[in-house]
């Protein structure tokens, strides 16, 4: 009964979405407020119906209703409750339901929170949101119904992939989808603005918080995924430039560019068409990302079994969304009024450079990710584009961006003073040079250490320049400390947010450079009692013992780690064998001192009692997680800025062109 309610609610949601996609648009263009006003209650109704469907599916998972095919295929009674719930989005159908639920939540938020929005803009934006809903609801109902029944119902389910039975991965897809779907808000605002024919500072102020929220979620989602891969896959890597990872990273790059270009629209009323285009592109890339992961067209280390038969529908959906919005853009963008004069050396100039590099990088990663598909289609042979390609292209594009990132915030709007900014950055330059020289000399003067020195130098540069900029803002050491603190307290939150986020990137870069350069590894076949040494740690393998978990059996190793005779940690890496589905997994054990990790994983035990023990020394990897946390925190602080929270001055909204709606 409950699955049928869920199915029915989805169908109702489709009809509501059709109404919401059409009536408010007509109302807004004819100035009929009653018709335009349909958008808000429709968005609320749509949320209610979609949430009902989501709740129904979750209920089926929690009570293990195996008469529902989706539950029978992906769940099992012996799973802990958390993973019964996470099971909802562990598969294609369920993840689409999660997708559409998040879309409905964003629609609801806009309907309820956007009080200071002009009614016509809100009606149009909600209508565009509903168009996306229509596409996805049709997709779910016609090709991927999660409520399909099985008759007779099996006695138990087939279980969920054990690799997904992990707290990090239980929350990774919802975070990622909050990010992907969050960009739909920027997209809908952009399409609404194109229909309306005007984009101004107020528009940018409305779009920014939604983009920022999406960006925070996407950042957290990517970091969670990377963290999960690091500690569960047992090979200690945190980024492989794998297609599935790139699928989430490309929208992040585009979203970061959008975040920055929206500032230019807000402050200088410029870069308008470009910002609209970025909003369209960021969401389109999110769509591509969603489907790349689920379609299985690319060989990926993270690939899960998938069903390519839905490909045609997906392609059609992508073609309509991306093609349609780009055609609209081509028709309407020229009508957008050009903005203020642009000086190359200025804050907006710096932001433009940011956009240039970020979009070039996004395009490069996209090209590398999709190239195997093109090559296959054009019969150029089967190829794969791996990490070396991305390292050879992405790093050289990011390095100049980081350099500019240190200077940009010190330039003023309209006309910046480059030599003045550089003078204020002398301390940062000295620190950078010192860091590069120290690292190069200390770490053995090899090619690898040159890379590390270069990467750490960039990190120090960005950190120091960000600190200088912050100190300048609060006039630290130029005024009494109390006055500086008062300035810090009255600074807009977005300024704090920027400093935090930029510092976070610096920390993450330091982590990447250190982890790449000074990674150490030793693989040994050890008998109980044997000792191996790595990076100054003595690792004593004490043997293995069997352990039982809730839905798996496990072989657990006892490993004592000491340093110069002092015990440091006892580590217990495991090899688990899950029962449903029958599948082995590796659980690594990590000792972290906050700056570097000692990472231990075990392999098979042979007949003679020797076990393969893999030990990695992973210096500075924790900095990656700190960096990601700081980036998100910076976004969050910026999101809490007054001008996003309180309605903010509505600004003068002037019709921008002759073609107004």
């Amino acid at each position, binding site marked *: 009964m409950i699955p049928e309610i869920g199915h029915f609610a989805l169908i109702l949601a489709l009809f509501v979405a059709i109404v919401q996609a059409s009536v408010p648009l007509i109302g807004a263009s004819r100035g009929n407020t009653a018709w335009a006003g349909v958008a808000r209650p429709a968005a609320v109704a749509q949320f209610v119906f979609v949430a009902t469907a989501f709740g129904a599916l979750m209920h089926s998972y929690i009570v293990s209703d195996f008469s529902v095919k989706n539950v*029978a*295929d992906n769940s099992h009674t012996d799973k802990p409750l958390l993973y019964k719930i996470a099971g909802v989005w562990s598969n294609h159908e369920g993840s689409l339901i999660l997708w559409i639920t998040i879309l409905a939540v964003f629609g609801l938020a806009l309907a309820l929170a956007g009080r200071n929005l002009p009614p016509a803009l809100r009606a149009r934006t909600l209508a565009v949101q509903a168009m996306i809903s229509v596409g996805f609801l049709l997709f779910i109902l016609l090709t991927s119904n999660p409520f399909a029944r*099985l008759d007779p119902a*099996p*006695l138990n*389910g*087939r279980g969920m*992939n054990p*690799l997904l039975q992990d707290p990090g991965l239980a929350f990774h897809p919802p975070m990622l989808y909050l990010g992907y779907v969050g960009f739909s808000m920027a997209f809908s605002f952009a399409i609404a603005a194109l229909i309306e024919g005007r984009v101004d500072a107020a528009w940018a102020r409305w779009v920014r918080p939604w983009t920022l929220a999406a960006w925070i979620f996407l950042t957290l989602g990517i970091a969670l995924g990377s963290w999960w891969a690091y500690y569960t*896959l*047992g*090979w200690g890597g945190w980024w492989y430039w794998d297609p599935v990872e790139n699928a989430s990273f490309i929208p992040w790059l585009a979203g970061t560019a959008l975040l920055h270009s929206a500032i230019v629209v807000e402050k200088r009323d410029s870069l308008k068409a470009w910002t609209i285009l970025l909003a369209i592109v960021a969401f389109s890339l999110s769509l591509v990302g969603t489907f790349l992961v689920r379609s*299985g*067209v*690319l*060989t990926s*280390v*993270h*690939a*899960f*079994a*998938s069903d390519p038969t839905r490909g045609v529908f997906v392609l059609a959906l992508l073609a309509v969304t991306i093609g349609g919005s780009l055609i609209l853009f081509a028709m309407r963008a020229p009508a957008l009024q050009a903005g203020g*004069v*642009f*000086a*190359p050396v200025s804050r907006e100039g710096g932001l*433009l450079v940011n956009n*240039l590099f970020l979009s*070039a990088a996004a*395009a*490069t990663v996209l*090209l*590398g990710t999709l*190239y195997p598909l093109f090559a296959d289609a054009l019969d150029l*042979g*089967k*190829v*794969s*584009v*791996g990490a*070396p*390609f991305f390292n*050879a*292209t992405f790093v050289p*594009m990011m390095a100049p961006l980081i350099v500019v990132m240190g200077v940009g915030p010190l330039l003023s709007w309209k006309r910046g003073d480059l030599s003045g900014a550089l003078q204020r950055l002398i301390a940062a330059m000295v620190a950078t040079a010192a860091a590069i020289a120290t690292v190069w000399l200390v770490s053995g003067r090899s090619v690898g250490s040159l890379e590390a020195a270069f990467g750490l130098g960039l990190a120090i540069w960005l950190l120091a320049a960000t600190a200088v900029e912050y100190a300048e803002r609060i006039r630290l050491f130029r005024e009494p400390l109390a006055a500086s603190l008062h300035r810090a307290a009255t600074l807009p939150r977005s300024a704090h947010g920027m400093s935090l986020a930029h510092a976070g990137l610096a920390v993450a870069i330091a982590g990447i450079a250190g982890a790449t350069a000074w990674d150490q590894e030793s*693989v*040994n*076949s050890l008998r109980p009692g044997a000792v191996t040494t790595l990076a100054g740690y003595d690792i004593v393998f004490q043997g293995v013992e069997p352990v039982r978990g809730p839905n798996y059996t496990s072989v657990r190793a006892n490993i004592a780690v000491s340093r110069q005779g002092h015990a440091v940690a006892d580590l217990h890496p495991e*090899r688990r064998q899950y029962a449903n*589905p029958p*599948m*082995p*997994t590796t659980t690594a054990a990590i000792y972290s001192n906050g700056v570097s990790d000692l990472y231990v*994983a075990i*392999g*098979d035990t*042979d007949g003679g009692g*020797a076990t*393969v023990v*893999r030990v990695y020394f992973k210096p500075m990897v924790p900095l990656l997680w700190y960096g990601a946390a700081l980036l998100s925190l910076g976004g969050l602080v910026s999101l809490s800025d007054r001008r996003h929270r309180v309605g903010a001055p509505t600004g003068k909204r002037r019709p921008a062109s002759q073609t107004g709606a």
Partner: protein
Amino acid sequence: MTRKQRRMAFVGLGMLALFAAAALVLSAFTDNLVFFYSPTDLIAKHVPEGRRLRIGGLVEKGSVVKEGTTVHFVITDLTTQTPVSFTGLLPDLFREGQGVVAEGKLGPGGVFLASNVLAKHDEKYMPPEVADALKKSGQWQGDKDKGQGNKGK
């Protein structure tokens, strides 16, 4: 500078960045593209030793021999076999009779020296290249598996 000149300067800068990016991409492509071969291709196309490539197929039953941390096994597309040697820890889902992709280079004597054996997250997953390689050699049986899947438990 007039407004127009400024705009042209920006356009010029943009083009420059674009060209630089394109040059980077092209040079990276020539060095870093890794081609995929099935065991049959590997012999038919006379792949030179030392070039970085991927091979894929099924792990032949009974072929896995472990020597401490080094593993020897045979990848087959069911018509041709390629011996592979790999040092390191194999992914959890590596087992005989299953699809596998290995990256590395061809060593002396036709032995493939793998530096990386690709892990999968899901035992139902078959790398598309492997599926194609099996289809080409006429040994593809994947659709049969699917039929079983629908029966449930």
